């Protein structure tokens, strides 16, 4: 039973990371109807920026904040410079462009920062916590990961629901024509969406890099799992992104834990299995039913 608890908590912790990436993909999908393949790469790049800041200033939190800000800026710049010109053209073009952006960013990271693995500090202790003498399988840092992602998600949810900017974003996502005709500058809203997505990705990057080390391709597999989580949850549903992420984290943790060494090799297959099962039952993701028919 102790094992189960450990796997559960560890799975939830990683699940939060997948949820963050999934959420960023959902944000962009709702705003632009586009899959941003560069999301992981952008997160990797902002994490490199963070580490430079941390080494330069000696402060983890300075790096943390700069990473988030850089993520927002990078997201906005990517949308304005590279994605905006591609809209209105064949749809796969924009996807290829984000793939090109991913490759470009990974190449630039290699040029500027070199290809070797770098370690990234964790905000808090990574020593496993204990309840009495029982190891819990999570550390203070894991708790911080969960708290950070949850807090950001809640902030976003509240922002969407209760602010004017949030209303504009939702209106633009649901019906861009009516939104534009109501005076909403949909183009700006979309840029804002990409900025928020970039921020979320940057958050995921700094939270996961202590575990994975940092190198130009370090976020690739996280991206794939985040994408899987978003698909499982339903690409139109932010709630689905979080649920999908947690679900995926949990199942992968159990698989890795109970299947031993074979488990880590089979992780992608297990993920594929979950995906297939979910999509067989709900081809548009778990929360797809909440899409409302327009007037």
């Amino acid at each position, binding site marked *: 039973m102790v094992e189960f608890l450990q796997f559960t908590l560890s799975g939830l912790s990683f699940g939060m990371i997948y949820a963050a990436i999934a959420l960023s993909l959902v944000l962009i999908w709702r705003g632009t109807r586009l899959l941003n393949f560069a999301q992981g790469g952008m997160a990797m790049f902002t994490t490199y920026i963070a580490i430079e800041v941390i080494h330069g200033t000696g402060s983890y939190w300075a790096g943390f904040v700069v990473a988030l800000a850089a993520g927002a800026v990078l997201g906005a710049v990517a949308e304005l410079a590279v994605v905006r010109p591609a809209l209105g053209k064949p749809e796969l073009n924009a996807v290829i462009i984000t793939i090109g952006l991913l490759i470009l960013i990974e190449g630039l990271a290699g040029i500027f920062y070199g290809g070797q693995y770098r370690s990234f500090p964790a905000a808090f202790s990574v020593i496993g916590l204990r309840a009495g003498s029982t190891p819990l399988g999570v550390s203070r840092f894991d708790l911080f990961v969960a708290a950070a992602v949850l807090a950001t998600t809640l902030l976003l949810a509240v922002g969407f629901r209760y602010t004017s900017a949030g209303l504009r974003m939702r209106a633009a996502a649901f019906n861009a024509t009516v939104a534009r005709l109501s005076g909403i500058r949909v183009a700006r809203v979309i840029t804002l969406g990409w900025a928020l997505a970039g921020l979320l990705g940057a958050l995921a990057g700094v939270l996961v890099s202590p575990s994975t080390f940092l190198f130009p391709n370090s976020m690739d597999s996280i991206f794939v799992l985040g994408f899987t989580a978003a698909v499982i949850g339903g690409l139109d549903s932010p709630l689905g992104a979080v649920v999908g992420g947690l679900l995926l984290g949990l199942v992968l943790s159990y698989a890795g834990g109970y299947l031993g060494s074979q488990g880590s090799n089979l992780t992608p297959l297990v993920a594929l299995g979950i995906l297939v099962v979910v999509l067989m039952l709900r081809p548009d993701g778990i929360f797809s039913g909440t899409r409302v*028919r327009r007037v």
Partner: protein
Amino acid sequence: MSSETPSLVVEDLVAGYGEVIALDKVTITAGAASITAVLGANGAGKTTLLRAISGIVRPRAGRILLDGAERTGRGPEAMARAGIAHVPEGQGVIAELTVEENLRIGMMSWPGIGWRRTERAAALAEAYDRFGPLADRRRKLAATLSGGERQMLVIARALVARPRVLLLDEPSLGLAPRIMTQVMDMVVRLSRENGITIVLVEQNARGALAIADRGVVLNLGRVVASADAATLAADVALRHHYLGF
């Protein structure tokens, strides 16, 4: 009608999609607080006309003047902020948002910034006052409204937006006759009581001419008749040929 500057002037407007010319030198003049009915068969260009005025489609030639000021070639956001509200056919409300949120969207075209909360609240209160059923449902999703209630929401949002000109594309489409009449009454009130200039595209030509001041008949992108509503309604040959009644 009056000698003051007409609210909306569309002059020799040309617009189209790719190689297809949908509007060929269309000219329309709408006086302040008047109702102008735009009529004609399917494909005559009525919807394109509204889209060209509101900026969804960029005109290739011609001018659009709002209260005498040139507004040609602006995008929809700018046109909305300049005071032109357009309700496209079948897309009046955003179904995934609540009634109140839909009304709040109406306020996003108010010119300038810094509108105080009290002004916004007052605008909402006025809309709820006039449209009781909406007040009851303010937190419900617009998708849960019936057809007539949705059109009510559309009109209410138009009221909140306080536009100079309101372009309505087939507001009575798909509605039962009784509801249709109610919607038309609401449209009339918008113009008479709130001074909004209305341009109304309608398949239901008889109903539209009954409430309109002027009528314009389009055929294949051109204006084939432009006169006051009573004259058009009395022109039996015209009605048979272009309007179906």
